[in-house]
């Protein structure tokens, strides 16, 4: 199953990466094993978001920068308004990085 490394940049992914980094540098864990852990994190995070999260958010704003490279969209919005059941915020600058969801749905024979 293909996975995105996208979520490693999230808070939990960063913490995991730093922890693994410490373990690797201390010799407790081999780099190969650390990479396997990260790959598993990619899968688990994707599954969790898909299965456990149901919230919906609307965003409106001005497009400052857009870029589509290697199937990854990168947007920078200014004066973006986030609205959902949980949050309602306006932020001066937001960066959005999005991978193609179709890549996670390979044809299953």
């Amino acid at each position, binding site marked *: 199953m293909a996975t995105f490394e996208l979520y490693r940049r999230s808070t939990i992914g960063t913490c995991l*990466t730093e922890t693994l980094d410490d373990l690797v540098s201390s010799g407790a864990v*081999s780099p190969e094993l650390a990479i396997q852990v990260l790959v598993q994190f990619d899968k688990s995070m994707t599954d*969790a978001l898909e299965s456990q999260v149901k919230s919906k*958010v609307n*965003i409106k704003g001005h*497009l400052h920068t857009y870029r589509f490279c290697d199937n990854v*969209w990168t947007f920078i919005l200014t004066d973006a308004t986030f609205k959902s059941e949980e949050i309602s915020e306006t*932020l001066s600058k937001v960066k959005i990085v999005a991978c193609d969801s179709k890549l996670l749905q390979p044809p299953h024979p």
Partner: protein
Amino acid sequence: MASSNVSTVYISVIDDVISKVREDFITYGVGDAVLNELQATPLQTPIQTPLPGTDTGMYNIPTGPSDYAPSPISDVRNGMAINGADPKTGRPSPYMPPPSPWMNQRPLGVDVNVAYVEGREDPDRGVQPQPLTQDFLMMSSGKRKRDEYPGQLPSGSFVPQQDGSADQIVEFIVSKENTHQLWSSIIVKQETLTQKVTPVIPQRDGIQDDYNDQFFFPGVPTEDYNTPGESAEYRAPTPAVGTPKPRNDTGEDDDEPPLNEDDDDDDELDDLEQGEDEPNTLHLVLAQFDKVTRTKNRWKCTLKDGIMHLNGRDVLFNKVCIFWSNF
């Protein structure tokens, strides 16, 4: 409510990762203790941070820099060393340690062998410095400038013989170990000769006026070649080959270091410019896109399964609709 939801998801993710990785850990022979540590450590940081009240501090630091440089581990994956020290130590250290005072003092001795240094240090301390530098000059100049200064070398009666034979042997025949022996023997002979022929030396000085400026004051001329800094021993020979006269050397040395420094500065500036874009955007949305459409300047984007990091808080979402317009 949001934070508890995020915490629940995060905990489930961690448990899922740990449970599925456990077999790999056992396969690799890593004990459960490490696994427990791995499980505990991420739990502490991310779970506490999303809770209301304990906000930004923990978040902003890791999320910013990790934006484009996700992990040192990715470096490992790309084939770089794990320690991280290797790429740093690799560059300067091999070049830095050897510079002996001789490297700076003989700019015209271009690719002189180690035998020069080793052989010269001992006799140098024992004998007067001037004749030795003079001898050294003769050898180095004989090596490089034989074609350029055919008339100067014969002036020293015995020196050209030694240059010719020794240089050919060093360059093409003799191995390094042998060169040490050879040069040391030559130096010993020359040492005795110079001691005997000491009154002859001033004549050689007079003939080689070009080099006299540099070697008349052994300590002073190093100024010219100290300016390049660390890489003096590498940079100095280049102008020496092209322009044998020391006057030109001085001018080129003045020109070269700024050029090199500018090059470094440019690289650093590029890095800074690249990095500047990222820290400015503290608010980050990571997601998958289903559809991105644009009609004139109206954009519509549908994202799913994403993590938003806004104002130090994590917000998970299943679906996002974004509308925006171009400026």
